[in-house]
Every structure is written in C-alpha cells, then in structure tokens.
C-alpha cells in the first residue's frame, strides 16, 4: 500500500523509510504541505499519510482540513505527527480530520502499529466501495436487460411469423433463420445477465481489469 510521509526532517524520513518499505509500504515522501495535498487527491495516489504538524506552506492541520472538505475523494487515513501534546492541540488535530495522532518523540513500533490500523481500515473501505460500485452496475444492467427484452420479443415473434410462412427453398429463409437464431441468443444473454446475483471474476492478462465470468457466475436457483 502507498504511504505518504509529509515531513521536513530528513533524518526522520531516513529513520522511517527503510522499515516501512520492509513492512511492504510503497513510501512516497514530501516536505511540503501543498505538494502533499496534490499527491493525496490523485485518484491513484496514497491513501495512508503520515503528516507532520509543522510544515512550510500548508501545515498539517490545514492539510487535514483541506483534504476532508474535498468531494469525491477516495478513503484516506491521516496520522498527524507532532511535538505538541496538550489537549487543545490534540482536539484541534482530530477535529480537523486527522484519524490518529502521535506525539514526538515516539516509539517507532507504536507508529508502525498505528499505521497498520490505518492500512486495515483503508483495505476495508476500498473493498466496500468496490462492492457498492459493482452492485450498482449489476442493478443497472438488470434494468437495461429488462428494457431490451421488449424489442427482443417483438423481433423474435415477427421473425417466427415470417419463417412460418416461408418455404425452406426460399432464398430469404436461411437469412431469416439466422436472424431468429441470433435474437434467441440475445434473449439467452439477457436472461443470464439478470440471473447473476453473486459473481466470479477473472482478471485480464495485465492483472488490472476484471471482467465478469458469466459461465461461472452464481444464479438465484
């Protein structure tokens, strides 16, 4: 998982980066609050961030506030790093939108544990968002199939009628039969799509995209 560290202390960065990379985080760092903002609002940017309170440009608390006021942004988990430890400041940080708060000097192991908490939460939120998106797509496709079955019925019945009155020797017979058969195919397809309530998916070769495997998808019965 991508993790952004926004801190202007190079020693701190060095301290954390090695271990975090060992823990399987893809670490991106910046020492500027505005740059952190730009990175975090990218659709494929980090969703986990360690943010120092005191930074040039946009400070940590303002950064949290700015991020939380964005519409249509992916789930973010923000941990504020700071030397301040009085209650007002802690409250200010949390109210500004930080998910957690750690005071310097900190215990590294505690920091890694808290980052892991964030990682679990982001994983769950991403999964739920993907499920919702998929459900939405399924419902829409169900509605579309329902609408499509009306003209399919009209096409099918009319082609059946034409075929009934046509001798097989007629040159048009073969083409009409092809038309009828393919309309029937479309009908089978719309039925299949509508029956899907759970799904199996298989990845494309590049591992990024997923398509629905109609053959193996579950059905209601």
């Amino acid at each position, binding site marked *: 998982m991508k993790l952004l560290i926004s801190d202007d202390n190079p020693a701190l960065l060095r301290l954390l980066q090695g271990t975090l990379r060992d823990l399987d985080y893809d670490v991106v760092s910046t020492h500027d609050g505005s740059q952190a903002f730009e990175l975090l609002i990218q659709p494929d940017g980090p969703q986990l961030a360690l943010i120092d309170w005191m930074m040039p440009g946009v400070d940590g608390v303002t950064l949290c506030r700015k991020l939380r006021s964005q519409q249509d942004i992916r789930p973010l988990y923000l941990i504020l790093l700071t030397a301040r430890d009085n209650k007002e400041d802690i409250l200010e940080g949390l109210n500004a939108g930080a998910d957690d708060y750690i005071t310097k000097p900190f215990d590294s192991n505690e920091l890694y544990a808290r980052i892991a908490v964030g990682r679990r939460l982001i994983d769950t939120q991403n999964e739920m968002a993907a499920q919702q998106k998929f459900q939405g797509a399924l419902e829409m496709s*169900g509605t579309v*199939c*329902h*609408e*499509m*079955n*009306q003209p*399919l*019925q*009209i*096409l*099918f*019945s*009319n082609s*059946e*009628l034409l075929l*009934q009155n046509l001798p097989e020797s007629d040159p048009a017979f073969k083409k009409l039969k092809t038309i009828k058969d393919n*309309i*029937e195919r479309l*009908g089978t397809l719309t*039925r299949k799509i*509508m*029956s899907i309530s759970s799904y199996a998916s298989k990845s494309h070769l590049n591992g990024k995209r997923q398509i629905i495997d109609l053959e193996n998808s579950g059905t*209601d*019965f």
Partner: protein
Amino acid sequence: MEEKRVLVVDDEEQIRDVLKEAFTMQGYEVATAESGEEALKIMRQNPCWVLFLDLNMPGMNGIELCREIRKNWPMAVLFAVTGYVSLFELTDCRDAGFEDYFTKPVSFANLFAAADHAFAKLERWKYN
C-alpha cells in the same frame, strides 16, 4: 366445441399485434387489451378462460390483474409473460395464481403449448 378464446394483455402495441396474428393463425380467437383496466372490461363482457399477461404495465400491473381475475373468474388459467427474471418475481407470480411464467423473448411453441394444455384442462374440468 366452443371456440378457444385467449386474452393477450400487454401495454406494447407491437407485442399485442404479433401475438394476435400468431394465435389467430394457430386457430385461436384472440382478444387484446393494453391495460389491466381494459382487460377487466373485456372479461366482464365476454370472458376468456386462457390469458397471457405482461407483468410490467403502468397502472394495474400483471400481478394485481391476475389476483383480480382469479377472484372473479376462478376457472381462468393465467400465464405471466415478463421481461424480467428473478426468483422474487417467480414466487410472487405463483402466489398471485399464475399457472406458469415465461420470460421474454418467448417462442410461439411455448405459448401454444401453454394454451393447448390450458384448454385441454378446461375441457376436462367441464366433464368432471
């Protein structure tokens, strides 16, 4: 033997037309209605005992219409013809009193077989 009359109810004219033509060619008398209300009017004047109902109609839907027809004409044999597929809808249909359930696009073979069996049943019931 009495003529065999079927009632086709669908809000889409092109579906009513093509089904009417097909059933007529097969030797049935066909009445059509574009809504539940119209269907009930036809039933009150000259009832049909075998009916094919679209489920998704504005106003009274096919399920409500089936219930109404079964209430007043309990001998009627009704078939649902719908564009949607779901377990929910199938059990709703059986509860409402539909004999069977077809999804669009449905073939004439299926419709004629259904009508034939229904009329054979009605004939049997007459002599029991």
